[in-house]
């Protein structure tokens, strides 16, 4: 494919070296805050406020202390449950909606889809006041508590334009013959969707699961607003509270910050390829 192109670059090995040098500088800049965070998290307080970059000995106990004082064992579980509920709702609802947009003809389809897409332009901040009043009100009239409880943290995020958009692209590519033969076997849309379309799009669904998990895990503004007790506080809000409490103890702060990003890093390293590919794909078609 790019043989000639590659040979062009081969002839120019000084350009190759320059490329590596620039990339290396860029990568170092990208990583240095992380390295600094991890290195500081292992220092004792004196060293942390000193000027040496690396710790003289590794103080693992910082992690134990941060974990305990920040109540991370509670908040970790909270965040995981919040993510699980959000994802279950979001993925299920988005699968249904995406299927309707991709494979059923109905009046107003393109209009509704267009309106949904346009909501991606609305920054969440615009809706934050009415949404806060809504969840307060829903908690007051309904049987279920919303504030300081899972519904306020999960239900508003169960509708996802991005998820619908991505799945719609995929469902639309499923050949019509598959649907026709399923119909001959007496399967309606519902059965076709769950028995054929969903298993075929496992990869796309995984991408949505991973992206939404990261989004839910990292969310701060809204959870901060709807959790004023520790009961359902997610880890991001827990970290902010801990940062305030720890004050100048930056070794503990950094240990806390690193703890909160470890799950994301693990997920990323395992799903890297699908991940970057799907972002690229969704980006281009957006």
């Amino acid at each position, binding site marked *: 494919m*790019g043989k*000639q*192109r*590659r040979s062009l*670059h081969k002839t120019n090995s000084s350009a*190759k070296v320059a*490329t590596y040098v620039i*990339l290396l500088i860029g*990568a170092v800049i*990208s*990583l240095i*805050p*992380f390295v*600094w965070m991890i290195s500081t998290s292992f220092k004792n307080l004196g060293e942390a*406020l000193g000027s040496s970059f690396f710790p003289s000995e590794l103080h693992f106990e910082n992690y134990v202390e941060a974990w305990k004082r920040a109540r991370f064992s509670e908040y970790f579980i909270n965040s995981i449950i919040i993510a699980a509920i959000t994802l279950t*709702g979001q993925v299920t*609802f*988005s699968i*249904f*909606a995406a299927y*309707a947009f991709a494979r*059923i*003809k*109905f*009046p107003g*389809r393109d209009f*509704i889809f267009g309106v*949904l897409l346009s909501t991606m332009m*609305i*920054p*969440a*901040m*615009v809706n*934050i*006041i*009415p*949404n*806060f*009043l*809504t969840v307060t009100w829903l908690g007051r009239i309904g049987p279920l508590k919303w504030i300081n409880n899972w519904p306020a943290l999960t*239900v508003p995020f*169960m*509708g996802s334009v991005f998820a619908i958009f991505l799945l719609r692209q995929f469902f639309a590519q499923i050949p019509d013959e598959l649907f026709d033969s399923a119909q001959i076997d007496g399967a309606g849309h519902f059965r076709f969707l769950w028995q054929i379309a969903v298993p075929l799009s496992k990869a796309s669904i995984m991408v949505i699961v991973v992206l939404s998990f*990261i989004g839910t895990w*990292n969310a*701060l503004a809204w959870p901060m*607003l709807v959790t004023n007790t520790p009961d359902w506080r997610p880890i991001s809000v827990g*970290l*902010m509270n801990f940062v305030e409490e720890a004050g100048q103890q930056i070794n503990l702060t950094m240990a*806390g*910050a*690193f703890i909160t*990003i470890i799950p*994301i890093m693990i997920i990323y390293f395992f799903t*890297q390829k699908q991940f*970057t590919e799907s972002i*690229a*794909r969704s*980006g*281009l078609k957006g």
Partner: protein
Amino acid sequence: MSNNTAVVKKNIKPGAQKKQRQRKEALAAYAFLAPSILIFAVFTFLPAIFSIIASFFRWNLPYDPVFTGLSNYGYLFTDDIGAVEFGKSVLNTLYFMLGIPINICVSLWIAVMLNRKLPAVGLFRTAFFLPTLTSMAAISVVWIWLYHPADYGLFNTLLIRFGLPIQAWLRDPLLAMPCLIVMGVWRGMGYNIVIFLAGLQSIPHDLYEASEIDGANWTGQFRLITLPLLSPTTFYILIIGVINSLKAFTEIDVMTQGGPLGATTTLAYYLYQYAFQYFQIGLASAVAVVLFVFILVLTFIQFKVVEKKVHYG
């Protein structure tokens, strides 16, 4: 639809049958859409309408709302104190957006280099992408200390090493916004690089080969092939960038709380302050409406002005 009515006119019976089937199909579609639509209606559409209505009231919690017509807008646009403060937050928002073109240039540059398919390039991509994934909360916590005004902040240790005077960074009204912009570029780069890479890979190689035969050098290729063919990608990144910078909240709340002296109060943060610190729901709703109009105008400008320079196909 028009096809269908023609069928109905010609032959009523099968047409009616077909119509019934179509109605059944439509019902299935609406049932499938119902949960998502319900959530969007309650948490996206109705709130937008609510904000517009609330913006005409003086509504300072815990007191009841009082209809005051356009007085909230009057406060934002003509009041001696209000308009100055609000105008400043609009300017801050635009200032914050300076990060978008910087980010585009840096990430395009890196993406072009990553696209050369040299060995170990994947490792670099991983490194560049890591900041994008990490929560803004955790990143802000780290960067507060990188920007720490004491001599042990990372940036200050660098300044000391080069014999330069240390800076107050986030606590300096002039430096606070550039600090946020630099951090934003650092974090947002990875996402843009991935999208630029995909765009670069979709440019056919024959174009480069043909231009090589014509004697084009690297800069010529970049200007005449890469840039024009990449313009839809750049356009997309630009729009996403605008949306992201308009909703920026976490880093501001964690790192500067809009200060010092209001130097980093963007529209979104201004809205949040009025709603949840001063509890002036009416005024905050007016800000929300302005923010929304702001986005509409920016999007419109982007589509009308920038799209002329975008080459599709």
